[in-house]
């Protein structure tokens, strides 16, 4: 599938380097803003911050991942890109799979980097930070998959952006429970379960998203 290279390149230039609409900088700044504001809201009690900080990082990561939902799939349907790809025998499933990868690259690694200053702001210690980083590594691909799937399903609906925000929440709950839960239990078990949920979502998304794009033609 040599044609997927140009498609990935285009996706990355739109999602990561799309400077005019914020690109990858927007989720990171949003994420850091939450980490900065949280101590102001709950007070400077160091033990409380350290205990709850990991969970805050997870919620911030989830919300940062759904920021660009409305421009993940819908613009390409409106432009007729999916029609042209279909005529060339490039299936919607492949395009959606590539888009999940591009979406993850646009927020996953940047958020893992941004978690370093965020952990300093929240007073999280080294061991907890390691759990957070591993959890984000296991969980953000799943968040990317959920985001692309919901973006494909809500594409073309009136008020799709608002609806997609609501629809992401229940699908992201398992990731949040296991990902943030691994902090309190401190074990690898939570991270492994987060990874398992991510894999399920990654496996389902290309088919669900592809079917949604085809259904949007009717």
């Amino acid at each position, binding site marked *: 599938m040599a*044609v997927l*290279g*140009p*498609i990935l*390149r*285009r996706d990355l230039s*739109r999602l990561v380097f799309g400077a*005019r609409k914020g690109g990858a900088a927007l989720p990171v700044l949003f994420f850091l803003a939450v980490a900065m504001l949280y101590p102001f809201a709950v007070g400077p009690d160091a033990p409380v911050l350290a205990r709850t900080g990991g969970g805050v990082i997870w919620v911030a990561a989830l919300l940062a991942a759904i920021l660009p939902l409305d421009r993940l799939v819908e613009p390409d349907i*409106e*432009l*007729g*890109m999916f*029609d*042209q790809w*279909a*005529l*060339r*025998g*490039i299936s919607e499933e492949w395009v959606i799979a590539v888009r999940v990868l591009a979406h993850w690259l646009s927020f996953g690694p940047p958020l893992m980097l941004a978690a370093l200053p965020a952990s300093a702001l929240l007073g999280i210690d080294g061991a907890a930070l390691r759990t957070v980083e591993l959890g984000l590594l296991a969980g953000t691909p799943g968040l990317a998959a959920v985001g692309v799937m919901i973006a494909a399903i809500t594409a073309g609906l009136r008020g799709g952006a608002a609806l997609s925000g609501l629809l992401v929440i229940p699908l992201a709950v398992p990731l949040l429970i296991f990902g943030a839960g691994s902090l309190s239990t401190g074990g690898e078990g939570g991270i492994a379960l987060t990874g398992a949920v991510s894999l399920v979502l990654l496996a389902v998304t290309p088919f669900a998203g592809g079917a949604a794009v*085809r259904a949007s*033609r*009717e």
Partner: protein
Amino acid sequence: MHLVGPNGIGKSSLIRILAGLLRPSPTGYGKGSGTSTAGSVHWNGNVGLLDGHMALDPQLPLANALAFWSRIDRGTPPFARLGLDGLEDVPVRLLSTGQKKRAAFARLLGQNSNHWLLDEPLNGLDDAGVSLVEELIAEKRSGGGVVVVASHQPIAMPSAQILDLRKHPY
């Protein structure tokens, strides 16, 4: 083949069914009913589609937007022939209606497909553009390609079949 008929009669839908993008109604309306699935139209060769959607990124300069499709199709769009010289650096969204249609033709020509499905290919084109499109269609047909045009405007296609959808009520 030239599809004619008033707005809303289903010219574009027929084009999309021929492209395999839309499924014919499985129940049918009376005679000729049967089931069919998307992509069930079998073409001998590959098919290019030109419709109201440009499939070119609006914020990119024209040359970059077309370069995306050249990388996929491995063909070169003929800028000069389509009168797009000097517009390479202009973002697609700033092009005029006629220039956008010419750009869409550049994408279509770069695809080097065997057959063409054209939905209202003359919309927004000036006289020179219309005759250019007629010339391109004639070349495609003389090369053995099938060209299906849905257009309410007259378009010169010598000895083309004309299908008037008004005579085929469902």
